[in-house]
């Protein structure tokens, strides 16, 4: 009998896995949903980074976005938590084994409404964690209500006109001392993938606000969360490439003099190819300014907005052992009897 696998040999990465090994269950989101495209880029990024799936733990809250951890990397542990409270869930879990990498997928409802507090506190603690917001400016799973990132004056069927101004997730992250802030557009898969790869290498919190159009409830051509608007208004700050630590950098590929490199904690680099403006993503004030002018000018600014690779992460504040906490046995966890005698003598 003919062995099919012999004839179609899938490409394997350095850890011997094919791209299929990073897949999840088939998506139950709408056809054409931006979230599916992001899940695909997470798969590609992890495959290309040679990440072993069981070294990744996935988290989410509640909403359309939060369903997506099911749709990538089914060989990773995952926990689909409560609305707006994925950050706390992830924080507690990541302490169990700090050699694991954490990725969370949230939405604009999950992060910018009920979850804004946990979001900002996770950011300020600088937990090493890839935090993706699939931002479509609408509540999809409850069928089309305004979210906290919906633009002012947006009209939605059954809701009327949105009277409130939106929350800018990147601005909130920056204000809370985030050490990695990026914005992208689900319709720009290459940039999404490169940013995810960089985020995995950052030793701290990585915030990725990805505009991800909702094809069912919110894809009006004039709305800033639609494909058409995104395509027309996207202003990339730079062309962006991620270079893994072991890959030799051939700077010619990036035309010396037009590039800026950011070295991340693990030795990998982000190469930013200058476009029209010379944007320095390590300058926090410039980051605030570009977000402010984007708001004023109706631009969708994408790329790496801010990065500070040298801040201590949350784990640096805890002197944890090499062996993961969740593998410690009774000999490490229960103090000896003499210690209790000492305590009894103290009281």
């Amino acid at each position: 009998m003919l062995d099919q696998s012999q004839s179609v040999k899938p490409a394997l990465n350095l850890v011997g896995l094919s791209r299929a090994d990073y897949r999840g269950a088939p998506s139950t989101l709408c056809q054409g949903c931006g979230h599916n495209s992001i899940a695909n880029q997470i798969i590609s990024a992890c495959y290309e980074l040679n990440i072993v799936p069981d070294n990744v733990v996935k988290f989410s809250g509640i909403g359309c976005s939060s369903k997506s951890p099911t749709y990538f990397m089914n060989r990773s542990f995952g926990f689909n938590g409560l609305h707006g409270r994925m950050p706390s869930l992830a924080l507690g879990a990541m302490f169990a084994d700090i050699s694991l990498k954490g990725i969370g997928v949230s939405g604009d409802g999950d992060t910018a409404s009920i979850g804004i507090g946990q979001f900002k506190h996770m950011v300020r603690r600088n937990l090493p964690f890839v935090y993706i917001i699939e931002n479509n400016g609408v509540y999809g799973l409850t069928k089309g209500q305004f979210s906290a990132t919906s633009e002012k004056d947006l009209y939605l069927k059954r809701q009327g006109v949105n009277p409130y101004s939106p929350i800018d997730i990147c601005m909130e992250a920056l204000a809370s001392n985030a050490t990695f802030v990026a914005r992208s557009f689900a319709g720009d898969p290459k940039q999404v993938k490169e940013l995810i790869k960089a985020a995995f290498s950052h030793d701290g919190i990585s915030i990725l606000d990805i505009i991800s159009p909702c094809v069912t409830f919110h894809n009006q051509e004039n709305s800033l969360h639609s494909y058409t608007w995104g395509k027309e208004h996207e202003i990339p700050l730079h062309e962006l490439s991620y270079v893994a630590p072991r890959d030799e950098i051939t700077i010619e590929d990036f035309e010396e003099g037009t590039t800026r490199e950011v070295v991340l904690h693990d030795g990998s680099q982000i190469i930013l190819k200058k476009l029209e403006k010379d944007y320095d993503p390590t300058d926090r004030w410039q980051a605030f300014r570009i977000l402010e002018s984007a708001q004023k000018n109706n631009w969708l600014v994408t790329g790496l907005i801010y990065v500070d690779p040298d801040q201590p992460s949350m784990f640096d504040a805890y002197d944890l052992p090499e062996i993961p906490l969740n593998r410690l046995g009774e000999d490490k966890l229960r103090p000896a009897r003499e210690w209790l005698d000492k305590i009894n003598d103290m009281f």
Partner: protein
Amino acid sequence: MTQTQAETITSTHPAKVVNDFCITFSTVNGSGSATANNVLLRALFEMGIPVSGKNIFPSNIQGLPTWYTIRINKEGFLARVERDDIVVAMNPATFTSEIGFLVPGGVLLYSDEFKTPVTREDIIAYPMPVKKITREMDVPPTLRDYIGNMVYVGILAQLLGIDLEKIHQALDVHFKGKQKAINSNYAVIEASAQWAAANLFKKDRYSVEPMNATAGYILTDGNTAGALGAIFGGVQFSAWYPITPASSLAESLNEYLPQLRKDVKTGKVTYAVVQAEDELAAIGMVVGAGWAGLRSMTSTSGPGLSLMAEYLGLAYYSEVPLVVWDVQRVGPSTGLPTRTAQGDITSTYFISHGDTEFILLFPGSVNECFEFGWRAFDLAEGLQTPVIVMSDLDLGMNEWMAKKFEYPDTSINRGKILWEDDLDKMLERTKGDWGRYQDLDGDGIPYRTVAGNHHPGAAYLTRGTGHDEKARYSEEPEVWERVMKRLGLKFKTARNILPKPVVHSMPDARIGIIACGSTDPAVEEARVMLAREGLKTDYCRVRSLPLCQEVIDFIAAHDRTYVVEINRDGQLKQILTLEIPGLCTQLHQVSHIDGMPLSARWVKEQILTLEGK
């Protein structure tokens, strides 16, 4: 008062009262009286006399009245009593009302600055020259008010016969050996005692005498005990948010973990404590850590527990082990944050939406706070569900005389957790058909893997949405029902492994008393009082929910059973009624709530009234 008046008083009352009275200290919150009161309590304890101390304090940092009561009882009854034998009045604002609480023949010590007249003639009053003594001492003016409290320590020591050497020992414990603080406080105490010896003519009947009733005992509070128990139970992760009266539990973890759980060789620690941004986050972190295989806990009080409800429901349904300490205070709402209650029983038993139930443990002493501190983790991981330890302010924050802590008598039980090799064996056993939520042993408890397990078959996605035995998303009606029934079976299993009630009997008693938690000393003392009145009682102290058969048998074996508790609605009785409707007519509610610990007198009188006596 004249000498003759004093003689009249003492002649109509017992001439001498030794080791059986109550002292209440009335001070202004924030004036530093806690040190003085604790030192006196410990000195009496070091003299071998059974003592208890209760702090009645306001929700305030500085300025409002606060009281501290020490009960000295040679028989070892240490519940709250409502009478005052001795009042030390240091707060002019409450001076007049304080006098009213004294028993005839009682003693009033007060600062001689107070100009309010002493209105009763059946008490003995001693003015204390607090200002004069502190002025003569070498004390910086900023510390004078604080150290002024040491004046009453010295005068009381002289009046009652408290050993000054024991007071020095108590200062040493309180200030953890810091010589400067010990010396400056002791100097004031000594000078005050000398002043009293030279200037006070003792007219009252109260005194203390050394005993040998505290050997083998320690003096500590339930929050410290709970934290230490958790540390000996191997706590690995704790997230918390400050709230009275639970904060000191988490703070005790912070105090003792670095001493007890740091690897001496490597200097690495085997735990992480995080102060969360609120209780919603604290419980989220604890669920995450428990899910990923850490012994995980939080500590809070009613308002915080209300915020935790939704995550507790997720932990129940997705079967995540974790421990919550509820140090109860008076609710509803913000209620009386600094007063004690047992008002969270019903709401906590069913705390989340949908069909849920929770394991509750009720420590009835500081020793049980320690024991449940470690045992709660074994139960939570054994049953893969949240365990909520129901303490309260009285137990958690007040100082109690307790037997020395006992080292855990069983090894740490991590429950049905599968690491790589275990999973290989499991797959062999099940011929590759293992699933996270499969009940393989018929006890309703499945096997779990945790993040960081690198076996290719270990990973699964945990969710609060409908899921089947393989942890796959499911909306199938029969799957939902099957999983919920299996969870119900797990709680049946729980009934057999949770702490059994403690039953104390009297021969031929037909009347039963059921109680839980911190009311234990009042109930035990009330039983002695009732027996003196001719009413014998048996006593069943419930230590866990859901109920076990022993409690049901106890109720069935008695004509009537009184359920004693600190809340308005009789919440423990509510649960008993739900669980054993057939026996509920035999149950009678004895509950009230005013923020204070129950007294034995109140319990006795309620039961006598209900008995028609």
